[in-house]
């Protein structure tokens, strides 16, 4: 039996983390384990776990190292962490979340403190840039789940099409081939949304528009200067949980 490991702090941000962990568990046929590294008490963490009907494991030790070590256990399928302690608009990823995300080569869900959680993960927003086809990141984590997949392609300046001819027809033909070429993994109905602009701005916005339960992004674990601007921007701006799935170098986003 695998585990969804939810690493929470002692703040209100813990609740949405636990809610996502509980929503993910049945998709993975997993249990949920809750881990708290005690720094300034554990009252709120305990209450959050209790409210979620989950058992809390409290430990002491270096926070980042401990979480990563715990996440490395073979039976941990996904790690769920909070993006930062407090909400209040687009902000950089918190230090802990950043360190854990870049240090653990496993699927990680980063949950904003003000995330809207329904308790069920049904609708997934999958941004696709248009690169040689791989699996959708979510499907590397969740197999055979009946998910409502919405693929989002953002035309950025360097990927704007040359021609749109009669756009009502062009978009239809272009979309058909785009899905065929870059989303071969879909087996059921799939909806394609397109936007024009900067991906890091639009992905969070579209996630709100379509009421996605989670955004799934593949990434290479590198958030260094100039790297993965879209992943960084989405993590900073998104009010929806973001599932980051490690992929090979060259994967979009």
């Amino acid at each position, binding site marked *: 039996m695998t585990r969804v490991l939810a690493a929470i702090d002692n703040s209100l941000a813990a609740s949405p983390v636990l809610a996502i962990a509980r929503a993910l568990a049945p998709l993975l046929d997993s249990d949920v384990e809750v881990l708290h590294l005690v720094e300034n008490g554990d009252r709120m963490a305990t209450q959050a776990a209790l409210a979620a009907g989950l058992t809390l494991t409290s430990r002491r030790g270096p926070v980042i190292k401990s979480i990563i070590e715990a996440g490395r256990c073979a039976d941990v399928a996904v790690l769920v962490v909070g993006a930062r302690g407090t909400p209040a608009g687009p902000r950089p990823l918190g230090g802990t979340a950043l360190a854990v995300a870049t240090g653990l080569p496993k699927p990680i869900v980063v949950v904003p403190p003000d995330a809207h959680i329904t308790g069920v993960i049904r609708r997934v927003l999958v941004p696709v840039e248009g690169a040689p086809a791989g699996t959708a990141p979510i499907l590397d984590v969740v197999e055979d789940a009946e998910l409502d997949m919405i693929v989002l392609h953002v035309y950025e300046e360097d990927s704007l099409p040359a021609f749109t001819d009669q756009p009502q*027809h062009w*978009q239809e*033909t272009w979309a058909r081939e785009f899905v065929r070429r870059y989303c*071969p993994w879909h087996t059921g109905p799939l909806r394609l949304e*397109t*936007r024009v602009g900067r991906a890091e701005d639009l992905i969070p916005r579209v996630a709100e528009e379509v009421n996605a339960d989670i955004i799934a992004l593949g990434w290479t674990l590198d958030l260094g200067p100039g790297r993965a601007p879209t992943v960084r921007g989405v993590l900073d701006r998104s009010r929806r949980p973001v599932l980051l799935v490690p992929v090979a170098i060259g994967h979009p986003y």
Partner: protein
Amino acid sequence: MSEPEPVEPGRRFEAVVFGWSGTAVADPAEDAGRLRKLVEELCAHGLDLYLVTGARLPEVDGRLQARPVGPGRLYLCVDEGSEVHRVGVDGTRLVHRRTATPAEEAALDRAARVTVDALARRDVPAAVVPRLNRRAIDLAPGTEEPAAAVRKRLRASGRLSLYGIVELATDAALRAGLPDPRVTSDGRYVQIGLTDRADAARWVLDDLRRRGIAPRLVLFAGAAFGRIRGVPGADAPLLVPEASRSVAVSVGAEPAGVPAGVTVLGGGPARFLALLADQLERRRRGDVPDVDDTPDWTLTVDGLDPDLERVHETLLAIADGRLGTRGTPLLAHPATDPGVRAAGVYARTGADSELAGCPDWTTLPGTVSDPTLLRRRLDLRTGVLRQDGPVAALQFSSLARPATVVLRAEGPPGRLPGTDRYTLPGPFAAALSDLCRDGRLDRLGGYAPDEADARAARATAEELGFDRLLAEHRAAWAARWDAADVVVLDGDPELQLAIRFALFHMMASVADEGEAAVGARGLVGGGYRGHVFWDSDVFVLPFLAATHPAAARAMLEYRIRRLDAARAGALRRGNRGARFPWESAVDGFDVTPSFGRLPSGEIARIRTGEAEEHITADVAWAASCYLDWTGDTEFAEGPGRELVLETARYWASRIRLDSEGRGHIYGVIGPDEYHEPVDDNTFTNVMARWNLKRAAALDGAEGACWRRLADALVDGFDPMSRLYEQFAGFFDLEPLLIADVAPRRPIAAELLLGVPRTRASQVVKQPDVLMLHHLVPDEMAPDSLGANLDFYEPRTAHGSSLSPAVHASLLARAGRFRDALAALRIAARIDLDDISGSTASGLHVATMGGLWQALVFGFAGVRPRGDTLVVDPRIPPQWGGLQIRLRFRGKPFVLRIDHQSVELDAAGALALTRRDGHWEVHAP
């Protein structure tokens, strides 16, 4: 005698050219019964045979006595290239003779006499034997001495070698005034002639070219290609440069070796007969024919890339004007998107209508297990698709017999179906028959709306058989290319292939009987739902009017049969006359969607159906273009007249006169769809004006009114700047140069800048004012092209795939070659490089037409003007020139244009005159 070894190179040929004495027969006196039988059987199985000899007809036919029934042909090329006879069941028929002029006959006599006299002075007896177009100098007159003995005698005498006699005769011929004498020898005779076997070879290759058989598919067989005592062998002249891609074999001993490219098989006539028997066996058992793979005629795709497969299937598609079939592998693979579509056959109605899918005739059992083994080659010259891999196959959709399909395949057990006959229902039903034996399959079939008709077409195909169907299909394509090919001389091979790719798919997309509904993406994909736009009338039709008028007429018939719907469209708007819809499908009513999802995600109202009205004048323009090229008086006085008059009536009812008597057309969309709707779009107004004036010349009653309205229409022209304002208020918009703000062009500017800003700026999607300079240059102010190019070119985003070709044409007219070639290249590569990201759903057929127009109207400067064709070329320094095949007023011709001159080859049917700095093609 032991059986000869297996014959290389081990494939089926489509024609065999062979010698007589020493190749086909050892001794002219021997019985040629076995050869005759083989020849007749090979012709019955569709092989074309050409016998080339220096002997005369009675000597050869009297011995061979073959009387083939066909479909393969037998030709006797006799008298050293001076005559060609076709042989049929009723005997021989002269099809070609080189006739010497009296001066040439006199020169031949002089040369022969001088040679004999020179030989006499050297004690070499000789006598002249007159032959057709040559004089044979007999080196052993009055004897039966064989050639070998004559050579030996000459050597022993030490006086003069055979080689020396040939040189002597050549010198005599040149001094006698023969500029290109053909001097040959077989050892006994030295012949001074006007022709030799090289002329025969050229005649043969030209005959085969006209029937769609490329040199690579031809086998040359001789016995004397190498030198004999320093003198070229009798068969050496067959190796003309044009045959460099053919296969040449010698069954002779060739003691001094052979020229490069000739394979020595040896074995004499027995070996040659074995070679023929091998060819017969290959045809009997159904070998898959090969294709020519000349780079500028062949599109090759190796392997199967799942990401690009749908694009490749579009590029490799075959069609016959009625039926289009994607170039899908014959075995299944998840990345493929097979499809068969029929022109004008739609599913559903209204905006939802789309080209209906028809039953697929190209599938075989099994899957592609190893894509790396797959190779597909589309031979553009003959319209056949060859596939190699686990199964080798050749398939085509017959241009000679549209909606008849043919597939021949070879494969291992389990890869081919069993013998069967079956009907597949559909909007266009398919009746197919599979004949399978010994690892070979022939699938023949017919498509028709009615199953019974499909079965009848299948029955006809079965009766004709594979080889006859292939022969007529090839010949049909050869005829089309003879009328339409465009060659860039000393140009870029990649561009040449792209040009032929474009011409091929245009020719394949349009029927030449009945009506032809030419959808924006052709017959090979579902893109644009098969709807018909101005793309067809303005971009595709001119190519066909100038090369294959029957197809252009069929396109016009599509519009003419929908004139009532166009009248209803006008009436619905409170107007008179006929108003053609922006998008058209089955019934001629507008099928433009009212809303569409844009790339930005917005659902936007689509207004082109309501407001892009220039199409009404465009259809009239297409009709007049057809008339300009063909002079079809029946059309001009009948449906063409009605079409021009009704469209003019529409414009007359559409124009609003202001208080000062100026005419306006309000609320339209021009070709530049970034700005909508606008008032007094110059393109719409000038085309309407042109339409009114054209109609006024036909109709006296309404003509006067139409002329007044035409003269009253504003056109936005400013005499000071020489600029045309694209629409009322255009010059007040933000003067944004897309060339300065876009990271590249072409680019969809409405996505880069956003729709509101684009609409508020002077960025244009595609040529609008400039389109007038391209379509109706005589309607535009003289010397205004430069100013409008300078103004509008940097403002053009080329957000339409129709755009680059028109700019290429105009930039060429303006002599701006670097930019013209850059734009031409984009137009040429739109589908080959999938620049639009949508080629998987079909071909940009209108862009292909634009490419042709850029070459012919732009660079070659060819335009009809009344009863003449003006030729005013602009050839870029990067090219050697252009060679263009066209048809004007029913007369086919070839124009060869270089930097200094224009040459016309019209077999006397047309003449070329230099006048006022340009050339004119006209009746003699």
